[in-house]
């Protein structure tokens, strides 16, 4: 990974007014729910999916569309370093926002007389951190495939397809289609539900599945970018 690439990416994201506006909304709305109903615990916070989208969308595609990638690869930067730095920077940003949100939610609950148990806070933080580093991995692959914010379009298309499969499957009595839809969703948003892991005496599959999706997405993103031929011709 490359420190300069990571810092530059974070600076770019944190100076984008649109992303900051979405960040504020994604941060504030769940906290309002927590303030209104502190007894519901951390269930209103979901996971770091929204933050991963806010920081990660277009992480490679926007560089491709704007011509930054051509400039960047004219320098001695390895493409795998670039991909891993992009993923790590987006994940760190999403994780930081998520940790801040969990911390604020815990403070709000405590102030409203529903202090969360330390175990609850720990499990929620673990869920959020793994989802921050997980969701950004398939996103980096989609971003390597599509220019601009095309990764969001691809993500939406896959989600809609999997939702259709899961809705149609019971009607036509084909449970395998529902399973395929579920797998697609799991691949698109790799998270580990530590509530389930805690509940089970031993459940390695969710952890292995998360690690498998993350590594496979990153490896494929590097392969895709390695095969990408960039035009250095002037378009003006």
């Amino acid at each position, binding site marked *: 990974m490359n420190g300069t690439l990571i810092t530059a990416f974070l600076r770019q994201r944190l100076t984008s007014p649109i992303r900051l506006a979405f960040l504020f909304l994604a941060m504030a709305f769940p906290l309002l729910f927590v303030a209104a109903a502190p007894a519901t615990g951390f269930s209103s916070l979901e996971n770091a999916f929204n933050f991963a989208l806010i920081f990660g969308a277009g992480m490679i595609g926007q560089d491709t569309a704007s011509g930054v990638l051509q400039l960047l690869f004219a320098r001695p930067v*390895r*493409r795998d370093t670039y991909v891993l730095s992009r993923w790590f920077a987006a994940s760190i940003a999403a994780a930081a926002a998520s940790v801040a949100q969990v911390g604020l939610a815990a403070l709000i609950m405590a102030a409203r007389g529903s202090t969360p148990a330390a175990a609850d806070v720990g499990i929620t933080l673990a869920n959020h951190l793994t989802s921050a580093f997980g969701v950004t991995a398939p996103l980096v692959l989609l971003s390597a495939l599509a220019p601009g914010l095309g990764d969001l379009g691809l993500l939406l298309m896959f989600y809609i397809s999997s939702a259709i499969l899961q809705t149609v499957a019971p009607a036509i009595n084909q449970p395998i289609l529902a399973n395929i839809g579920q797998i697609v969703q799991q691949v698109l948003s790799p998270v580990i539900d530590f509530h389930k892991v805690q*509940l089970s005496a031993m459940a390695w599959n969710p952890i292995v*599945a998360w690690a498998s999706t993350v590594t496979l997405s990153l490896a494929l993103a590097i392969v895709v970018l*390695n095969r990408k031929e960039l035009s250095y011709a002037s378009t003006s």
Partner: protein
Amino acid sequence: MPRLRDARGTTSRAMPRVLLLVAVALLIARVGTGVWEHQHPPALGERLTWRPLAAAQAEAAAAHKPILYEFSAEWCGPCKVLSSEVFADDHSAHLIESWFVPVRVVDTQREQGHNAPDVQALQDKFKVDAFPTLVVYNPANDHHESVVGYMGKAAEMQELTQALVKVR
């Protein structure tokens, strides 16, 4: 196209061989653990002893307790959270065991396309259309109260306490 190499002789487009190997190994492990855990479901850490559906009525009559039906489904995420936060918690599980005869009713509509007749009959009787739904049912007077969804341990236990009072 020839790959450009830097001063150290390394290409800027190096194949991520180690990462690919790890990814393939994890993919194999993923399939392996998935098959293994499907065939050997991990033991749940719940502190409740769920009673068989058929035996619940007799036990409830003998113990003068209402029945607590937990309607859930394998794919239902909030049901897992309910399990881990309430049914796996010593204190909550002890209270539930002392107040009710607990019975788990698992919906299989999505997996198998249909439910067992006794499961479907209960879902129809209590008009269950969301998971998790907890139904506190007193067979002695045929009264019941439903708690739909999961809103956290404290709220759930409060709802169950109120339901217990209402069905008596």
